């Protein structure tokens, strides 16, 4: 099983954000395996599942870079290891 992480993007305006997150993933060696998007009232939430086995930086640095990209675009972007979701939602 490949190790995965969840990148979540929430904000009001999503113009070009998929391209920017994808470019960052490519740069850092994260392979995108799934993208989905939900609209919650005025907000949109994009969820990206990425494989992190091939990262060329430590995962904690990947998290920092993703968050920085969010701040630069006035969006809330976070990356979290998939284990937290598996723990909470699977028995």
């Amino acid at each position, binding site marked *: 099983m490949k190790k995965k992480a969840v990148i979540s993007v929430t904000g009001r305006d999503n113009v070009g954000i998929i391209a920017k997150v994808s470019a960052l993933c490519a740069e850092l060696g994260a392979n995108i395996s799934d993208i989905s998007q*939900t609209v919650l009232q005025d907000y949109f939430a994009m*969820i990206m599942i990425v494989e992190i086995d091939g990262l060329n930086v430590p*995962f904690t640095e990947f998290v920092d870079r993703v968050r920085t990209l969010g701040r630069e675009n006035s969006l*809330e972007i976070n990356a979290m*290891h998939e284990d937290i979701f598996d723990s*909470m*939602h699977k028995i």
Partner: protein
Amino acid sequence: MIDTKDILETINMIREENLDIRTVTVGISLFDCVSDDKARFLNNIYDKITRTAADLVPVCSEIEKTYGIPIINKRVAVTPLSLVGGKLDGDGYIEAAKTLDRAASALGINFIGGFGALVHKGSTRCEEALIKAIPYALAETETVCSSVNVATTKAGINMDAVAEMGDIIKQTAYLTRDRGSVGCAKLVVFANVPEDNPFMAGAFHGVGEPEAVINVGVSGPGAVGSAIRRAGDCSLSELAEVIKRTAFKITRVGQLVAHEASKRLGIPFGIVDLSLAPTPAIGDSVADILESMGLETCGAHGTTAALAMLNDAVKKGGVMASSHVGGLSGAFIPVSEDAGMISAAEKGVLSVEKLEAMTAVCSVGLDMIAVPGDTEASVICGVIADEISIGVANGKTTAVRLIPAYGKKEGDTVDFGGLLGRAPVMSLRPQSPAEFIARGGRIPAPIHSLKN
């Protein structure tokens, strides 16, 4: 594949509902630090604590970042110092407290627990010396926490120790009077104290514990409160299910963090404490949960029943989520650390007597309650004796953390800042239990067969 709905739920619980890991606490045995030479003993404990927990703070930061879950407190609990102090006198114990304080500061943690004694059946010379040193130790350190166990269901209640703790609490309040008597916020009197509790101020490393251990305390009143509000108009049977499910999810995060911290620090995993620990932040309140269950204000008649159900459902949901549970496990009701409790107390709805009833059905006890500074020591002893009796008679942990805030009277407020919060000064009955307390001796252990 992980479900998008589940992902959003987790993110929402962390971001909007204040879900966090309240504490990762490393328990450290100090038995191999014993020495008849004071300087060597102090060096030994400093070295052992700073060596064993050296990576605690950086490892917790890594885990926070990896899983996106905040870990609010990183702490250390040590063997009760009265068990390892040997021939230390009072001044020696104060120096030992300062050594713990230095070690905590070197590690970058906010509290270190274990400046304590277990005197449920009687005190040794070491324990007497340590207890007398508590007010000075708490006044002269920032991070050191102290607990004294004065009773167990098997041994009964050591009323000599209860009588002494009244004076110790008053003295601690006086010596820290320039800081709202904050020393008392770091001092707990227990019945049936657990040996693996990760929460301060009562954490210490029990004698049955291994060399070192990781214990994790979870939180999540905000997440439980939101789930109840989302459930809307439903029966209590259905509500219990909602609480159980939410508690399961919260506890699973605690188990994950405990497992990871244990692996990364190379220290065995002990327990997850299934707790609902509030903070003064809005929306992170146990009182709010009780109110969202349908009470107009926390403290109204019905509060004890609501709390009993909440506490039970939290344990039922949590116990399946973790491989080992322990500590205090249950809902906490510290007045100053819970915005809803503060508000209910300020309205005069929540009284010390109601809180006492609530402690019969949830974890801990009369916690973080400010009382008038001129309260007689014997009245404080009466409060302790009552609360400890509830624990002893019911075979559960109870505790008292009262703050007789120096110079303050009923209606005033004491502000400790940060996680310790802000406490409205609540009234106690001034009638004297002094003669009862002064009798001393022990209240015998209760019989546990004729249960009616």
